[in-house]
């Protein structure tokens, strides 16, 4: 058994600090740097398929958390699939810890995407009443399913007793989760959608583009710190299990 630590706590702490600073910068930019009033002709005035134009006014500020959190969910599902394939090829237990960490963090960031999206949709697509924006739109629904898939992997792991069978199931299910994010991404092309198909209009405004890029960097740093934290935790769990078995 290896005695060296799974990962330097300093790296995790540095990532956590950077992530916190990134989140604060994102909040500051989205409230104080981006324009207060919006006008027609820009993306935050959106037109859903077959619907009337909606002016999002102040509600568009949710975008700076919602979109980077969706990118973070994509990273989690992709890393889970890569981890699954890598474990099958190498059988190194580090990959198991990565798959589990990605699913745990994927649950958290996926919840942020769903909650911010739902609150925004209540205003933009619904009547303003809580729950009125949930319209079974393809991207919304597929994101919810991806969230359930992260949860399913964690439930499956707890239910399988043998270590070998558990690790194998984790790797295989991690691979199966992989293709779900491309589906979320392409969902706007499958059926009638309320989501905008691209953000080119929005990003033509320099303040919006700068804030969006800063928010993406900030949330990715926060994501990396969360994955690193959960990775350390899971590696510690693996070590304790090995000590008990020895």
């Amino acid at each position, binding site marked *: 058994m290896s005695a060296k630590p799974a990962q330097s706590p300093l790296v995790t702490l540095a990532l956590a600090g950077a992530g916190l600073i990134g989140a604060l910068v994102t909040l500051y930019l989205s409230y104080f740097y981006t324009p207060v009033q919006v006008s027609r002709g820009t993306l935050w005035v959106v037109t859903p398929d077959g619907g009337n134009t909606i002016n999002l006014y102040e509600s568009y500020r949710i975008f700076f958390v919602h979109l980077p959190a969706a990118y973070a969910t994509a990273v989690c599902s992709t890393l889970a699939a890569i981890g699954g394939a890598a474990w*099958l090829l190498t059988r190194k237990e580090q990959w198991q810890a990565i798959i589990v960490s990605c699913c745990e963090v994927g649950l958290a960031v996926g919840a942020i995407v769903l909650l911010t999206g739902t609150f925004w949709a209540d205003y933009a697509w619904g009547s303003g009443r809580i729950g009125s924006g949930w319209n079974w739109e*393809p991207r919304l629904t*597929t994101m919810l*399913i*991806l969230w*359930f*898939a992260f*949860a*399913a992997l964690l*439930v*499956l792991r707890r*239910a*399988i*007793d*043998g270590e*070998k*069978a558990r690790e*194998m*199931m984790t790797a*295989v*299910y991690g*691979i*199966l*989760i992989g*293709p*779900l994010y491309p*589906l979320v991404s392409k969902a706007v*092309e*499958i*059926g009638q959608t309320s989501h905008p198909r691209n953000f080119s209009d929005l990003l033509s405004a320099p303040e919006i583009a700068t804030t969006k890029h800063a928010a993406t960097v900030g949330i990715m740093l926060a994501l990396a710190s969360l994955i690193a934290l959960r990775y350390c935790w899971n590696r510690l769990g693996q070590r304790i299990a090995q000590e008990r078995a020895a």
Partner: protein
Amino acid sequence: MSDTARPASLPAFAALLGREFRVELRTKSLITSMGLFAALCVVIFGLGVKGLMLDDTFRRFVLAALWVCSWFAAVVGLNRAASADRNKGFFSALMLIPHDPALVYAVRLVAAMLWLVLTQALMIVLAVPMLRFDFFDQPLMLGVLVMSDLGVLAPGVLLASATGRARGGEALLTIALLPVTVPVFLGATGATEAMHTGTGSAEAMPFVLLLAVCDAMFLAIGLLLFGKLNEG
């Protein structure tokens, strides 16, 4: 796959498939549980919608309800097969055969597809009078049906082989399988709706393409990983 494992061959495939059919014909456990479940679902849905008007909304509801019944009938069948494997030790014995485990996966998949298609045939026969369902005006639906069944059962047979050994495996299979097969459900309901709302088969093509991609991907994953998932 052990070092001495031989590659899959047609006679071995036929022999194993014949064994699956003989076991089912003797016990009739899968087809009765899946068939009864599907029939009950159709009857209960029929009771719930008996007073509704026969309009587009009604048709869309019936289509979605039939796909949901079909999905859960597949899960009932997979769970029943896994339960028999666990209790009678069938699966451990099958994994000892000197062939690539992908052969066992392929046999299981073909047999499960046949039972599901038979169950769906029963559902459609019941749904035509009970849910006022027009199936026979769209022969292309048969293709969609087979592609959807493959898309659900390819990961289903793979996951059932592992959840069958777990605590509370029957609930686990549902939890594990449904999120993964949602793309198939989207494809199946989308293609069915496009065909039955008169927009034509061209409108259904993106959904059929989605089903084809899912089928190819899940089949490849199943054939590659079935042996690994059940090794040892």
